[in-house]
């Protein structure tokens, strides 16, 4: 497979996963903020959305609507959901001869939906529809990647993009929500705040139901951290995604995972570390741990690009 096309596939995977997470985050944060009477919580929800998408926090947004448009629909903002879907499609187009027609059709059909979505409708009535349709369509596209493509290296590069992006998005969600919780606690908002925020954190990763099955208690910081970072059976935990990424690298890779400083070696070590890490080791300063994790994930991207995608 061409290195350039492998790059297309990898970024196709990343953009699909990114769009899905941004949409869910926007959806969950916006609608859970409506359930609270606390101005601070509502303000924080918007700020947290800005952070997730990586918009400049100091920019002046006159109205809430401006923020919501900037995050979802602004074509001028390369981090918006619309831009991500545009990039996803361009990458799929660049590899159109290798992916299945079913994947392409799902991608393209959805692109037309996003492309033609009326901004005015979105601002006043369409936020739920827009984000929810995005989430659903990302799921359809991924399902078709899974069920209509050869599970060969073409597929493996899409999967690597998906899992790396998911690990990054989950880490960013955790960082964002732990920051929110800290800020709310400093301002002495009442006690249910942390639990409420942790619940919305779990919802942002579609993990609330499975969290309940795993712990049978209301969301608490330590358990949520353990669930979202270390759980090996939850497909949106960091450990799970790193372990998946390792599998695809082994499928594609020609190198042994003992070759020092290779990506296979690096991810092997990280994966083993997360298997035997306990939540006690990270709960004292989760933000420091998560910050390091994010740095590590970005390094992985660089290693992967250098070893397989440079052309």
């Amino acid at each position, binding site marked *: 497979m061409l290195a350039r096309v492998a790059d297309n596939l990898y970024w196709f995977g990343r953009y699909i996963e990114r769009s899905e997470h941004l949409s869910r985050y926007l959806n969950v944060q916006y609608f859970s903020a409506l359930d609270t009477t606390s101005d601070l919580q509502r303000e924080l929800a918007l700020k947290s959305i800005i952070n997730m998408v990586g918009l400049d926090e100091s920019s002046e947004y006159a109205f809430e609507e401006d923020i919501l448009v900037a995050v979802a629909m602004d074509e001028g903002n390369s981090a918006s959901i619309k831009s991500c879907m545009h990039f996803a499609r361009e990458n799929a187009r660049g590899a159109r001869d290798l992916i299945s027609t079913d994947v392409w*059709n799902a991608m393209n059909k959805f692109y037309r939906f996003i492309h033609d979505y009326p901004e005015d409708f979105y601002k006043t009535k369409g936020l739920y529809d827009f984000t929810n349709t995005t989430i659903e369509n990302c799921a359809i596209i991924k399902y078709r990647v899974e069920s209509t493509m050869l599970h060969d290296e073409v597929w493996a590069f899409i999967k690597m993009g998906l899992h790396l992006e998911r690990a990054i998005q989950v880490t960013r969600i955790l960082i964002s929500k732990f920051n929110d919780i800290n800020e709310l606690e400093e301002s002495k908002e009442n006690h249910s705040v942390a639990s409420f925020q942790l619940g919305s954190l779990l919802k942002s990763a579609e993990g609330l139901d499975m969290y309940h099955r795993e712990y049978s208690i209301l969301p608490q910081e330590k358990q949520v951290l353990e669930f979202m970072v270390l759980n090996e059976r939850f497909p949106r935990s960091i450990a799970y995604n790193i372990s998946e990424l390792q599998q695809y690298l082994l499928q594609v890779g*020609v190198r042994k995972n003992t070759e020092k400083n290779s990506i296979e070696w690096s991810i092997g070590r990280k994966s083993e570390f997360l298997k035997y890490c306990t939540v006690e080791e990270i709960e004292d300063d989760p933000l420091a741990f998560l910050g390091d994790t994010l740095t590590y994930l970005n390094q992985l991207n660089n290693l992967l690009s250098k070893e397989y995608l440079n052309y």
Partner: protein
Amino acid sequence: MNGKILESYAVNDRLLDEVFDHGGVIKKPYERVFDHFNRYGAEDFKRVNEATKLSFLLQGITFATYADNPKGTERIFPFDLMPRIITSTEWARLEEGLIQRNVAINLFLKDIYNEKKILKDKVVPAELIFSSVNYNKYMVGFEPPGGVYNHISGTDLIKHSDDNFYVLEDNVRCPSGVSYVLSNRDALKKSLSVLFKQLKVGTVFDYPAALATCMHSVAPEGVDAARCAVLTPGIYNSAYYEHSFLAQSMGMELVEGRDLFVDHGFLYMKTIYGRKKLDVLYRRIDDEFLDPLVFNPDSMLGVPGLMDVYRQGNVSLINAPGTGASDDKAVYSYMPQIVKYYLDQDPILQNVHTYQCENPVEMDHVLQHIEELVVKPVDQSGGYGIFVGSAATKAECEEMRAKIKDDPREYVAQPIMSLSSHSTYIDETNQFEPRHVDLRAFTLLGKDYEFVLKGGLTRVALKRGSLIVNSSQGGGAKDTWVADV
């Protein structure tokens, strides 16, 4: 309003209508189609039509033209639900003619780049060939594997009021459109499955296999399992859909110039596991962009050193560079002589009479009768630069005259041929109306291999009265059925 959709159809008595005779009676091959369509009410038909159009958009079967399209908005190639029918008998003759003509073109190309016999014998004027911008000096003295130059030809034909097909133009550089034939057929089968079942229509889906066979047949000598690829300028090219479609349906890599490099006389592509040698390249970029070392130095599309590898016989290019020297509209007028010269046969397919402006007597005729003629630049494609005398103002005619006098080699003229018309569904009126059509037929030549795609692409001039069918000029398409009817 759910009346019948064909009841108010107006037949133009001066033109050949492929569906109705001059008395307005449906022609035999179309009887079943007519019966079928008359079962639709206007609203039902509209619904089927809209659904079909949408399916093209949703599948991304679109193109983008550079000229009117700075933002890269994608458009579908408008598709008409009424098929054009060519009877099997008529097609057999056409097919024979297409192979004859393209075999002759191949022999002509081989000759003008090697022995130049036809020029020495003064059958075709040598200066006509050597003055052509498409005559490629890097091809002189070189014969491609299998002796094939025009592996893929797109021959544009029209049907005249005498009920015969005439060749309007030969396209042997990078003729496009074949993917639309296959996607149109696919769409039509789905939308009109009941009708489709009733007629035995020749398949078009054997084209990718035929093209792959053709490519493998001309692999460099000594290569057993040739690695083949399709070379595209990239996703912003107007025909990118076609490039990716062909690569995918043949199971070949779709490469861009930046994916390729030359090393020690061989062509390689950059893969995740390092370099892989390429043997046959179906290039969909023009000659001048192929290799910045020998042609356009600013080109980012091609591969430095590619021509060198080609001349060493280590990669085959489809079509060969320099084929443009034979599809020039000035060379076209010599086609009957070319067929006769190489094959000693009378041409099966007729040319449209063509005036050479560089011949003073013919130029004089053109200048005097410009209102009755179509004037074409010899080296343009896509319908660009075409001047239709009857549709031009006095001032425009004057301007054209001046251009011809300025550069006679650049122009040819032909009588305005009345392209046949065909019933075509028009969105605005929700009715069928006559529209002019032509036919692009696709012929493949490999080493000991000949193939003609059954049917080809019928292009439709969607503007009322217009003769220009090119997609870049707002034309549409019809599915073309070769059938026993």
